[in-house]
């Protein structure tokens, strides 16, 4: 099997150690970094995404495939300075202030990455001001707000107001999600979209940006 197929399969199967070995070997043999990424890792993560869409993959499979993809990305990224990596758009994600739940947001990040979005994960307990700073610094297409408790979901509205006050709201789509959030609530606070779960996130972002 050629290295592309082997690396793609390792990523699809979520074998991050094997993925790293294969990527290193390909680079050592003179394959350009961009090819390692596109023909190996991206192809592999696409395949994982396809299997997910078709119902053959479950969330754990996608998470592990994304981990493997990220290992290869981390390896080749420093070698790609000045090279365009094909992405559909940029998304800034974070759990809002007071909310320390990481997993739901991380799953959203993983699924978006597996669909070739450039994701900036701000982490958890992110104050409104940090979302504003990130909007300025990264110029994302979408900001995703996560809240997993009824006590913290109200802070989502504060982020939207802060973006408005900073004059950035019109430049970015804002989506809301997490266990505590409902479509009604998202609409009420002025979000552009709502995802019931991580699975919704990619389709929601694709739809908002008009890409498939």
């Amino acid at each position, binding site marked *: 099997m050629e290295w592309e197929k082997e690396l793609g399969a390792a990523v699809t199967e*979520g074998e991050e150690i094997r993925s790293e070995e294969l990527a290193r070997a390909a680079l050592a043999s003179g394959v350009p970094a961009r090819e390692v990424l596109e023909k190996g890792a991206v192809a592999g993560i696409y395949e994982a995404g396809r299997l997910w869409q078709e*119902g053959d993959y*479950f*969330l*754990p499979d996608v*998470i*592990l495939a994304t*981990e493997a993809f990220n290992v290869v990305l981390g390896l080749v990224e420093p070698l790609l300075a000045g090279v365009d990596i094909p992405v559909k758009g940029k998304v800034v994600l974070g759990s809002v202030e*007071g909310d*320390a*739940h*990481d*997993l739901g947001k*991380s799953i959203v990040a993983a699924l978006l990455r597996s669909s070739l979005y450039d994701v900036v994960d701000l982490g*958890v307990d992110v104050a409104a001001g940090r979302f504003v700073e990130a909007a300025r610094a990264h110029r994302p297409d979408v900001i995703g707000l996560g809240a997993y*408790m*009824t*006590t*913290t979901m109200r802070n989502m509205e504060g982020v939207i107001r802060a973006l408005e006050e900073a004059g950035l709201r019109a430049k970015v789509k804002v989506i809301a999600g997490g266990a*505590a959030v*409902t479509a*009604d*609530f998202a609409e009420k606070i002025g979000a552009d979209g709502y995802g019931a*779960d991580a*699975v919704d996130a990619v389709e929601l972002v694709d739809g908002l940006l008009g890409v498939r």
Partner: protein
Amino acid sequence: MGVTAKLLKGTAYARGLRVGQLDGYERLIAGIYGRPDRVPIVLQPYTYAMSMHGLSAKRFFSEPGPFINASRNMAVYFGADSWSPVFDFYNIELDALGQKLIWRQNSEPDVDTRSPLVASEDDFRRLKPPAPGKSGRMPYVLESYRRYMDLVGVPPMGYACSPFTMAVLIRGYVNFLRDMRRNPAFAHRLLEFLSMEVVVPWIDKIVEVTNTAIVVMSDAWASAPNMTTPAVREFCLPYVEKVIRATNSAMRTVMDSGSWGEKEVADPREILDVKMDMLTPGNSLKAMRPFFLLVWNEDYEVVGIPRIREYAEEKKVCLMLNVRPNLIEEGPVSRIVETVVKLIREGAGKGRYAMLINLVPVGTPVEHAHAAVAAMKQFGAYPVAAGLDAREFKAPPFAPFDEWMPTEGLPVD
């Protein structure tokens, strides 16, 4: 009346021996085994009780007095049949093991998933089991149970974290996914330790203090889509069974509950079957056990209540459905009543049914919670009447909480 007499009365009522009026506890027992006078209402006061009493999370989740009194006040104020002293039950054993938690002012503490206690196999080798009842906030839980029994006169339902969910929390989700796939021997060693050195001694201690008839291990992480059914069957169920075999008795039922995911699979029975298996492994005398099949609103709203009701009837198990917490917060009352009527019409059947009010969001107007309980009482009488939708809801009068507290409430300070 002693707890045994209440159990007998509730069970007899369920079987058709309808002598006298049922109190809330007896109604719940009757609802688990058959047909009570009306649908039982179970309340989990939780952080709503905390906020209504102006308590900080630190006090509510670590001081038995404020926690139990505030929870009791909510149950009495809203008129629930039964209430559980619900604390952050996923965290107690983890806290006792030394897992770092994040504390906030107005919500429950959470595991700091950025710092899993068992980040490596070396960490696991260093892990020491907690001293049951002494480590972390275990004394808070046990003292809360004692106070609950003093107030209510019956033992509480005991809560523990299941070994599987504990393993995910203590390792981190992605780490544990890797363990299951690449290092299953380690995953099993960890699960064995958590089962036999942590959960079993903790349940034994709860039982020693309360002599409770029911202990529930909660298992959020054994839910779809976060875990696959084969993974749950391989890594979760065997340890549920080990714990149950080590802790149950003829008069005590230990079960695993709280997972979800029926809407995530093509055939919801796949998840319902797993849930039934979580209740029953290692539990002999199955027909006598107070099992309840808990299905959450996120799932039944998609799958449909009739399919779930049909499954519960086939398995002869009590079905418990919650009311969507955000609905109770958002209202209006007409929508809440409409939903309660639907839950009764489609779910109540001829018995073996209970309704749960859980996770009421902080800030929810009290008239919404009153309306939910009143609608359950008004429309939930057995036999369920035909044409419930056409009946007019009569909103009951109630005192504002700050007027009710000085005369009826227990102090929390």
